[in-house]
């Protein structure tokens, strides 16, 4: 297979891809951290005796 050459504008191409990867990773991490934070808050509230009217666990999503 021929080696990939990016020519004289390689820095523009590489920077574009790196920026996209960085922003997508930030989005993924932000959403994953937010999920853990909400689960933790719900468990803390339930541990302190606050429950939903239905009686079901608020942290259980299955």
């Amino acid at each position, binding site marked *: *297979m021929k080696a*990939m*050459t*990016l*020519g*004289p*504008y*390689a820095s*523009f*191409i590489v*920077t*574009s*891809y790196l*920026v*996209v990867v960085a*922003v*997508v990773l*930030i*989005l*993924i991490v932000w*959403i*994953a951290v*937010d*999920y853990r934070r*909400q*689960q933790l*808050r*719900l468990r803390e*509230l*339930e541990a*302190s005796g*606050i*429950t*939903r009217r239905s009686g*079901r666990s*608020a*942290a259980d*999503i*299955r």
Partner: protein
Amino acid sequence: MTLTDLANPTRFLSLTARLLPWLAAATAILLLIGLYQSAVAPDDYQQGATVKIMFIHVPNAWLSMFVWGVMSVAALGTLVWRHPLADVAAKTAAPIGAAFTFLALVTGSLWGRPMWGTYWAWDARLTSVLILFLMYLGLIALWRAVEDPSRAARAAAVLTLVGAINLPIIKFSVDWWNTLHQPASVFRMGGPTLDRAFLIPLMVMALAFSLLFVTLHLAAMRNEILRRRVRTLQMAQAQMMQASRRSA
């Protein structure tokens, strides 16, 4: 399962729990295929290797408008049908749409410098996309400014529907005005003008980014439902504490 079934947040959470691993895996596989195809795609006879920027710029640009379209449908869901998950969908799509719009602007700028000789020009396409980005930021600020989600939802829905006027302006800006940005080369009357060597990787990347949006959006909606449960329980806790203070 119908849209009415999904009006029940618990049922929606159960569905997302089952769907998300599959969606994430499909997104990762498609992204890998798309990135490989982008890497091995030939150079353009005029643009050289910078054509590779197209494979990430165009999907982000499409999604920047598509996400606002999704938010507009959700806004109708809030104002007309009063669907319980409509404002959850609208609120959680905004930061993701803002990220795609930001990426469309940055990658477009990085493509523009070697091709046009400038990072930025105040032409109709670039300016209307910048306005879209600012509208996303405005909506995010609105959601954060109003504490009660149901009150914020109605104001945000109206703003979203007004902002939807910008979508045809972005799409047709290259036809209506004399712009530095090239006219449409994929979704146009008479079919795409792109060669298959570029069209196939572009479509794979567009599908991969669309799946990425669906995955991130469902995950963000799940988080928002849990956040609202936290809020409800915190309010119940505050009421209980108030009642126990009164009885003491």
